[in-house]
């Protein structure tokens, strides 16, 4: 896991073909920083780069779109009830006469926040949990696996419905907005599947010599997990991160659509789509604008998946400019 990844495969052939070039000791390759390699590989994939740009733009819309809004989410405009997109209301108004643009900005922000929080934290939890299971094995592994499978068995949908709809939880809901409660429950149920995969991957990594060496040197278990196991499953973790964001946004939209997610006065993409579902034929913009925003949010993530996997894969076959130049020279 050093920083330099020299393209060694070309060297022997070159030194045989043109030995006179190798007289001086300066290496004929540049040492490239690992993060530079990852960034370059990622941006070499045009679809992934495009996805990242769209995702950032939608994110900026959610964060700063509110500055452009002339209306807030709940003010009723009596002159524009249930009208389509116009100069006064860019995304049109709802059947109640509230401004859809302001609601869309808040919806994108809420959905994206849920996605990023759940995606990010569940990656960390699943990595740490999976690695601990694999590293210690034995009884601890059995107990942790049992806990994991028990959580997997509990129907997530019902737990969310109970927590969101329970009237006794009124006190919690006064302190925390509804979308935060939804985020917490989604987070609790989001990491088990990834943790299982990471466990089996980490189990094979633990047999490697460098982990054994670290063990015999007396390095603390948590340090071994953090320094040797986590970096080795890096590409999987990055993929889990984007997949986790997608899944969290999807779950938010799905649960809210059937009425057990984000509730008024909060807005999310799910609640915008849900409020439009009874008027899809008469007020189509109310349905399709949040739907388009939703696809602009999750579509780029799946475009980025392939580029990210390639960028973080140490055995990537992606050929960059430096290597191409070398090949040209070799000819």
């Amino acid at each position, binding site marked *: 896991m050093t920083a330099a990844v020299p393209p060694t495969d070309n060297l022997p052939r070159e030194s045989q073909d043109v030995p006179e070039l190798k007289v001086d000791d300066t290496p004929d390759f540049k040492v490239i920083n690992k993060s530079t390699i990852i960034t370059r590989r990622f941006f070499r994939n045009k679809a992934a780069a495009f996805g990242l740009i769209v995702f950032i733009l939608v994110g900026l819309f959610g964060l700063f779109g509110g500055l452009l809004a002339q209306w807030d989410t709940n003010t009723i405009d009596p002159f524009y009830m249930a009208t389509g997109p116009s100069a006064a209301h860019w995304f049109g108004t709802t059947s109640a006469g509230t401004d859809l643009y302001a609601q869309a900005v808040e919806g994108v922000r809420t959905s994206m926040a849920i996605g990023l929080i759940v995606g990010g934290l569940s990656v960390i939890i699943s990595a740490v949990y999976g690695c601990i299971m694999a590293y210690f094995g034995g009884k601890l592994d059995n107990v942790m696996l*049992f806990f994991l*499978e*028990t959580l*997997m*068995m*509990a*129907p*997530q*949908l*019902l*737990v969310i*419905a*109970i*927590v969101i*709809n*329970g*009237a*006794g*939880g009124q006190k919690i809901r006064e302190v925390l907005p509804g979308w935060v409660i939804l985020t917490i429950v989604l987070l609790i149920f989001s990491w088990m*599947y990834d943790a299982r995969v990471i466990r089996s991957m980490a189990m094979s990594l633990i047999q490697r010599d460098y982990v054994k060496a670290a063990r015999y040197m007396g390095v603390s278990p948590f340090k071994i997990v953090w320094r040797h196991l986590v970096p080795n499953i890096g590409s999987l973790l990055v993929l889990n991160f984007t997949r986790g964001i*997608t899944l969290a946004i*999807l779950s938010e*939209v*799905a649960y809210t*659509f*059937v*009425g*057990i997610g984000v509730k008024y006065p909060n807005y999310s993409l*799910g609640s915008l*789509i849900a409020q439009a*579902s009874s008027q*899809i034929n008469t007020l189509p913009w109310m349905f399709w604008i949040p*739907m388009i925003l*939703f*696809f602009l949010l*999750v*579509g780029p*993530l*799946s475009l980025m998946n392939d580029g990210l996997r390639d960028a973080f894969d140490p055995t990537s076959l992606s050929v960059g400019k430096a290597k191409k130049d070398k090949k040209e020279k070799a000819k």
Partner: protein
Amino acid sequence: MFKYILKRALTYVVMIFLVTSAGYFLAVQTMNPALLEQEKIPRPTPEQIQANFASLKLDPQMSAWERYVQWLKDILFHFDWGRSPNGAYINSEFGQRVWVSTRLFAAAIILSLIIGVALGVFSAARQYKASDRIITGYSYLVYIIPAPIAYFLVQLGAVAINQAAGDRIFFVTGISSPGVEPGWPTIVDMAAHYLVPTFCITIMSWGGYQIAQRQYLLDSVNADFVRTARAKGLTRNQAITRHALRVSFIPVAQSIAFTVPAIFTGGFFAEAIFAWPGIGLWSLQAIGAQDVNAATATLAYGSVLFAVSAILADIATTIVDPRVRMN
């Protein structure tokens, strides 16, 4: 092998017990049906509410632990899952609906497994051809569509077809038409009502199986034992069906258990969208009405479904994988 499965089953029983108990405590802590009673007209006095709930064994003044012990005793000794705040018996309410939902889930699970695995094999055998790209692309597309919205759009589509045809071709709500004669017409009527929800859950769930089966089959097509088989003179298709397929199905079979929760959730969404009087719609309404016992009974149902499918997955793995020697 039998012993192994028995051991697994025992573990699952413990897990079901834990999930249900934890769910019961969660429900007792968050749900308070007494608050809804106060919205009734004429408004009952607090004493009336208290007496009413105490007679239903839903006494809000008892501690959570006491209620739990009372509830657990009833289940263990009488298999009585308690009563709803409106006085209905959970056992009979649940019993009426459980087969409606279980049939729907079972049909959806079996169909999506068969279609997913078949399409996975088909697309792996034609890697990077147009058909492979369409099938796999569809699976990835489904992955980013929220299930209830897809069901909703299918429902709209079915309604549009009905209107265009000027006749009721697809049933998009409910489970049966009133006044159908018993016997054969009832079965046809029921099948017609099952059609759209089953179709919806299936088209949204086979993607995962398809991608997994394609991936594992491609991995094993390039394995040495398949190359050996080809070298011995088998055609590519013979090598795939006789050697690669079986090996590649093992991880898919193991994954069956872990896709069931998704189908279970999908079934709930479908019931909510299609006004389908199964467990899903009932439990969502019951939770809205602060019904602790109904919520817990459904939690138990969900975990039993998971356990059964996990055991089936274990059995399937043993059948296809000759290397599994379990003891």
